[in-house]
C-alpha cells in the first residue's frame, strides 16, 4: 500500500521537521531529499549535513480537487476544498514537493516566493504527522 507507515515516516523526521539535506564533499552541491550517491556529480557518497533555509520559489503547482486526493488527504479536501501542492525551487538549489498553506488556491502563482513552516500534514493510524509546508513569503512571520 502506498501510505507512509509510522516507521517509514519516523526515518525521515530530520527532513520533515528541520529540512536537513546533504552537501556533497566532492562537488559541493546540496541534495535534498537525501540520496545514496550525490545526484549532481554521481561520484561521491560522502556528505556533510546542511540545514536548508526553507526559502524558495514556486516552480510549478497543482490544485488537488475532489477525486484527485489520496484517501488520507480526502478529509482535508472535503473540509477546505482544493488544496495547492507545489514543487518549490529552494535557494540552495534543489527542488522539493510540498503543500502551500495559508493561501487562497486562486492566488498561487508561478515563481511566487515562499518560505517554510512546520505544520500538521495529516493523521493516520491515530498518529498526527507533522512536516514542512510552504507559506507565501508575504505572509510569513
Amino acid at each position, binding site marked *: 500500500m502506498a501510505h507512509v507507515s509510522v516507521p517509514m515516516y519516523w526515518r525521515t523526521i530530520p527532513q520533515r521537521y528541520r529540512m536537513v539535506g546533504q552537501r556533497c564533499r566532492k562537488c559541493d552541491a546540496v541534495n535534498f531529499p537525501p540520496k545514496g550517491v550525490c545526484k549532481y556529480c554521481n561520484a561521491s557518497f560522502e556528505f556533510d549535513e546542511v540545514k536548508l533555509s526553507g526559502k524558495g520559489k514556486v516552480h510549478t503547482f497543482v490544485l488537488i480537487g475532489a477525486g484527485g486526493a489520496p484517501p488520507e488527504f480526502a478529509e482535508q479536501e472535503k473540509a477546505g476544498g482544493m488544496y495547492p*501542492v507545489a514543487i518549490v525551487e529552494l535557494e540552495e538549489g534543489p527542488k522539493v514537493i510540498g503543500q502551500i498553506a495559508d493561501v487562497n488556491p486562486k492566488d498561487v502563482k508561478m515563481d511566487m516566493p515562499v518560505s517554510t513552516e512546520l505544520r500538521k500534514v495529516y493523521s493516520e493510524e491515530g498518529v498526527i504527522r507533522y512536516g514542512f509546508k510552504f507559506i507565501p513569503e508575504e505572509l510569513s512571520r
Partner: protein
Amino acid sequence: MKKVAIVGAGQSRYGDFPEKGIKELFLESYQDMVKSVDKGMDSRRIGAAYVGNLGSGGFQLGNMSALVSEFVGLPYIHTVRVENACASGGYALISACMDVLSGAHDVVLAGGVEKMTDVSGVKQKYWLGVSGDTEYERLAGTTFAGLYALIAHRHMHEFGTTREHLSAVAVKNHKNGAQNPKAQFQKEITLEKAVKSPYVAYPLNLFDCCSTTDGASSVLVCDAELAKEFTDTPIYIAGFGSSSDYLAIHDRINTVTLEGTKRAAANAYDMAGLSAKDIQLAEVHDCFTIAELLACEDLGFCEKGKAGQFVEDGHTQIDGDRPVNASGGLKSKGHPIGATGTGQAYEMFNQLRGTVDKPARQVRDAEIGLIHNVGGSGGTVSVSILRR
C-alpha cells in the same frame, strides 16, 4: 546477430468484468493470440513466458506468472512476473526479446494482465499511488493525476500549451476508441465536453485522465528464422530500448521532459538504424493527455514545447501524417496496467499487417511503427520499434 519476430498477438476486451479474474482475463488474450497464428501453434514450443502485472486485484500474489501460465496450458516453463508499474507490459516484451536473442529459448510468450475493478475506490488510490515517489510526493497529498498536473502546468507556463491542446488529445483518442470493439470507452466526446469537465487536479480535468481497467494481452515472439513456420507475414522487432529516471519529479533535471522516453527511444532508434522521422505511426502512453504531448516531443515527432499545436493541427489523427494512438490509447481503450505494453504491441502487429478489426481504425500501408510504455510518472520507460 539474431532477430526477433512477432508471429501472433491477442487481447482481451478491456473494461469492467466482474465475472473474470486474472486467470480468465489472461486466458481470453492467450486464446485470441493462438487464433491469430496463421499456420497454427503447438503450445509445447513455448519455452518461456514474461507476464507484466502490478498487483492481483490490488494485492501481492506470489508466483502469479506460474499461475496464469499453467491456467492457459503452459506448465513446466521458465515464467516470470515483470513489474515496472504501468510499463510492466512493455518490459515483458523486451524481456522476451532478450530471452530469444540470448538463445535461451526460441519461442517465447510476452503478456500482461491486470484486474483493477475488484478494488474499492479508497483502496484503489492506496494501491495506485505505489508507483511514484511514496515518501515525498505521496506525503504532499498527490496521486498520479496531481503529478502529471505538475508537469502539465509547467508545460503550459513554459510553452503556452492550452486547455484546448490537452483536450484535443482526449477528443482524438475517444474518436479512435469509438472504432475499437475491444476498447473500454467506445464513445466519442466533443471538445466542449472535454474542456468543461470538472477539475480533478487543476490544470487536469476528468477527461484528461484514463480510467481503471480490467484486461490482458498476449504476444508470441520467436527467433526470426523460425517465423515463417508460424505465418507468412511476421512483424519484426527492429529495435527496443528502455530507461529509468529519478522517481520523484522534483529530482529530475527537467520537469517538462521525460528523460526516460528520450533515452529509451534513442536506444531503440539506434538498434533499428532508424530515426524519429521514419516512424509512420505510434501507440504512446497517454495515461493523461499531457503524457501524449510529452511523448510526441520526447520521441522526436515534433519540437519540444510544440506538441499541443502538433496535435491540434491534426498530424496525429488516423488520416494525418503521423497517427498516434489509433487504438484509442490508454484514454479510451483503457489502461489495465500490466497489460498495456503488450496491448500496444497487439495493436501495432495488426496495424502493420493490415488486419485491424475495424477498417475505420486501420492506418493505410504503414511499414514501421513505434510503441511507448511509461511506468509511474516516468520512472521507467520502454520503447519498441516494429517493422513489417
